[in-house]
């Protein structure tokens, strides 16, 4: 554990110094660490695939509920991997999967957000208190300002939306950014000092 913490500290300091300083040796070391990161991420992908295969293979073997979906997942995993590796991800074969499956499925999921937003807004956007009423009014102005129909209803909606986005909303966003960035620094210090060991599997 101590050795792992020491590695964390040294590597993190190299990457930090690389951001702030222009020292060739540190830049070279940082470059190598960056490459290692990419390689480790690729290996982690293999580990994740193993986890996925293990869980779904077990479900198929035991014929547990919805095992057919697990079987389909495994078949698609094998076929897509084969097509990607054998034909390459710029091939016509890969494009068939991309245009025929991945793209429409992704677009469908994202498009469904519109329906969920509508039902969540209908349920949650109630003028129960003064705060909620302000939120409701601002939400409606921004929506109308973003759509061309808002300009037809009242020509000043885009200008009002723009003011809301660039003054009150931006002030709040900046406060959140600054707070979150400093919070991120505190998490970083805890990790570097070994006070926080989540990345090493937890424990105090």
């Amino acid at each position: 554990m101590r050795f792992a913490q020491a590695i964390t500290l040294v590597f993190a300091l190299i990457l930090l110094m690389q951001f702030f300083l222009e020292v060739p040796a540190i830049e070279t070391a940082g470059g190598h660490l960056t490459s290692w990161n990419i390689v480790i991420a690729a290996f982690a992908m293999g580990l994740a695939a193993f986890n996925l295969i293990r869980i779904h293979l077990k479900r198929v073997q035991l014929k547990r509920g919805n095992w057919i979906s697990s079987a389909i997942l495994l078949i698609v995993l094998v076929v897509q991997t084969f097509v990607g590796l054998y034909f390459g991800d710029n091939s016509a074969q890969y494009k068939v999967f991309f245009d025929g499956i991945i793209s429409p499925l992704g677009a469908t999921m994202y498009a469904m957000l519109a329906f969920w937003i509508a039902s969540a807004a209908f349920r949650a956007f109630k003028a129960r208190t003064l705060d909620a009423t302000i939120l409701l009014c601002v939400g409606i102005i921004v929506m109308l300002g973003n759509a061309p129909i808002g300009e037809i209803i009242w020509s000043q909606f885009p200008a009002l939306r723009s003011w809301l986005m660039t003054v009150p909303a931006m002030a709040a966003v900046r406060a959140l950014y600054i707070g979150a960035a400093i919070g991120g620094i505190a998490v970083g210090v805890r990790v570097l000092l070994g006070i926080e060991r989540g990345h090493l599997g937890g424990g105090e």
Partner: protein
Amino acid sequence: MSIFAPKQFFALISFIIMVGLVLYKVQQARNGKVPTIRKIAGLEAIEEAVGRATEMGRPIHYTPGTGNLVAATFAGLEVLGLAARTVARYGAQIIVTIRRPLVLPIADEIVRNSYMAEGIVESYSPDSVRYISSEQFAYAAGVMGIMSREKIAANIMLGYFLAESLMLSETGFKMGAIQIAGTDNRSQVPFFVATCDYVLIGEELFAAGAVASGNPLKLGSIAGQDLGKIYAILLLVIGSVTVNLGLNFLVDLMSK
């Protein structure tokens, strides 16, 4: 040639000051001067959620977000350790879903160690931590399926989220689950507020694990974080006043 990267001198000084303030407060805590930090309602609710799930005999879903190993993910993993220990203590079931391969082995080890810490490592199931997909919406669809099929009683989502936030929280809402969510991605906060019972916004997420653990050193780092904010506020105030007076020394200093 300067050894400082262009435009980074002031950033480096500010970074050193902020880290120094955090270290100072950590050291104070080490010497016994532990700060009092307000309680975070969402964290208090974790035990209630686990208790309810145990009574109902239904599992708890946990996700440390869909980001890679960024600060928000670390914060989510920090709370995962505490949630998993509570789950182990109550004898409930936890399902942790993962989008990023790099997060998988860490989450797996955290859950296993939590069961070990409670002395019931034999109750740990390797199927508790599940990699779903790196593809954003495939992950969302997979998790929504798990939430519905397993009829989850509680849904805890702490980390970095994108558009999947509303998909997951709406599904949790439909399942009638207690929902605790937190993210530092401002654009997803409104969706969580509309659908969840408890929401941790921005820096609350980073403070969550430290507050929940009660570890004096971690609490010290939160107090240091507040001193950092005072430094940022001072810069904002001095900057606004001087620029309006036509003095640009701070602007010049910042661009060095």
